[in-house]
């Protein structure tokens, strides 16, 4: 199979290479990184028929423009509701298309969502650090951020006509308030502050990147001591700084920190949360650790089913036309 080569005509800030991430290094100060929206990332690869966890491009609201210099490749774009323009056509994310030499592809912020994923039917090349090409955005280690003028290589680029078209969006994710387990430093907050946290409405501020999402809303005053001994942090930790402002820590979070964590977002609710944009509002709903584990298991079953469904090739255009003719034929026969 031949390779496909693109040049980056434009890349907004925080457009990065991401694979499934590098778990297991938090003890050395390295968060797992990987995609902000893991479901959309997995969907892009599943819909292309790729092996899970391959390297893709994560696209921020800043957008990305590519120019195909050599070869041709089928690619998937998922996540949020982004605008996709290619070779004179206009569509939106959750689509599979083929780009050929000379074509241009633009992906930019649309009606909703903060992160989109661009996956290729082939092996996207970038730098590896600690066995992963995921970009750790604060250090720049791993694949790195895309820059205008840079070239993108896709090795063993394939054309998969039987996969072109729209990708069904997931419809099984939790609707309603973002679910959290209270703690682990809830003892640092008075009872009425904890009540304010679960009853109040919070707004996403523009202090939002791969490290975390700062919120505005009811002040969450700390009870007494301002600092605790630095403690481990996870993706989803809601830490409250000395001025009572909460921040949800995300893919490239610091691994330890001395601000108390009032609650932690459960893992299956972080993918929806990261697609929020500045100005959007959200609420938190507390659940027990047992419920959280139950939800994680239920979510995995649903996610696995969904990914299996979208990974089935729908057939080439010709095959699909044939199928439609047969169906029409049946109708006439009756």
């Amino acid at each position, binding site marked *: 199979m031949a390779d496909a080569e693109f040049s980056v005509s434009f890349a907004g800030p925080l457009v990065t290479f991401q694979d499934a991430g590098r778990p297991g290094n*938090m*003890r050395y100060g390295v968060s797992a990184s990987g995609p902000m929206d893991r479901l959309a990332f997995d969907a892009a690869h599943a819909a292309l028929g790729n092996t899970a966890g391959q390297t893709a491009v994560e696209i921020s609201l800043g957008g990305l423009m590519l120019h195909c210099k050599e070869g041709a490749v089928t690619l998937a774009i998922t996540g949020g509701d982004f605008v996709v323009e290619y070779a004179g056509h206009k569509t939106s994310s959750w689509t599979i298309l083929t780009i050929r030499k000379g074509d241009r592809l633009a992906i930019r912020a649309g009606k909703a969502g903060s992160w989109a994923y661009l996956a290729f039917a082939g092996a996207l090349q970038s730098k590896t650090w600690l066995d992963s090409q995921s970009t750790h955005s604060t250090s720049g280690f791993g694949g790195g951020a895309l820059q205008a003028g840079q070239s993108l290589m896709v090795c063993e680029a394939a054309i998969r006509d039987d996969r072109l078209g729209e990708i069904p969006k997931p419809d099984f994710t939790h609707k309603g308030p973002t679910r959290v387990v209270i703690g682990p430093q809830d003892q640092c907050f008075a009872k009425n502050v904890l009540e304010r946290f679960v009853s109040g409405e919070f707004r996403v501020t523009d202090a939002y990147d791969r490290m975390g999402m700062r919120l505005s809303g009811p002040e969450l005053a700390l009870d007494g001591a301002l600092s605790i001994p630095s*403690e*481990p942090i996870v993706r989803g930790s809601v830490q409250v700084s000395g001025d009572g402002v909460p921040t949800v820590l995300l893919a490239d979070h610091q691994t330890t920190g001395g601000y108390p964590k009032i609650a932690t977002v459960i893992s299956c609710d972080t993918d929806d949360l990261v697609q929020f944009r500045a100005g959007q509002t959200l609420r938190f709903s507390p659940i027990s650790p*047992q419920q959280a584990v139950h939800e994680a298991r239920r979510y995995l079953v649903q996610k696995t089913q969904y990914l299996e469904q979208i990974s089935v090739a729908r057939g080439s255009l010709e095959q699909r036309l044939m199928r439609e003719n047969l169906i029409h034929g049946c109708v006439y026969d009756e």
Partner: protein
Amino acid sequence: MEPQFKAIADHALLVTFADEINEAAHATVIALDKAIAISSPDGFIETVPALVNLLVSFDPIITDHLLVEARVRACIQNLKTQKVVGVQRHVQICYEAPFAPDLEAVAAMEGLSTDAVIRAHLDGDFQVLMYGFSPGYAYLSGVTQEIQVPRKPAPVRDVPAGSVVIAGSQCLVTTLTMPTGWSIIGRSPTPILTGNPSHPFLFDVGDRVTFERIDLATFERLDKGTAHG
């Protein structure tokens, strides 16, 4: 204090041994971290040692908070009382200009000569407390009393990787160019991010660290072969 167990979301448990930083609690954290690594129970993903507590992260599909707590309690019961002895690591340091912009300020604050500050730093009994903030940022305890200086009121920007910085009882060797409010007393050519895939980070939590003084010419010779990061 009896160990406290707190659930974190659906996928982790925080085991805490003290409310405030103390040596015994940290020694227990390190010992428990080792014990869990050896027993490697089903569903465990990783542990993160910190100052007074240990994060145990797990796969909620395989196990849950209560099962993990039971396994961790069993490990705690079997902990040997003797402290885990960390590996002795060596870090070279050059205290000469232009690598030590705050050496004179530290000396002035403490009423010492710069040579006395250097001797005091070399005399420190350093141990790796935990990593945090950034990849490879290892917080070392053990700066001697006579050169324990507070953080600066405002951080200084663009402090180069390899800078050796101190604040209070802690010392660290920076791994990235970034702002810091700590006092910069030297520069090290010893990579903390080793670039060696089988041992990518120089220290493990609990290791002991000795600084070894080198002159500018030696630094320049050594640093040529080193790319931080």
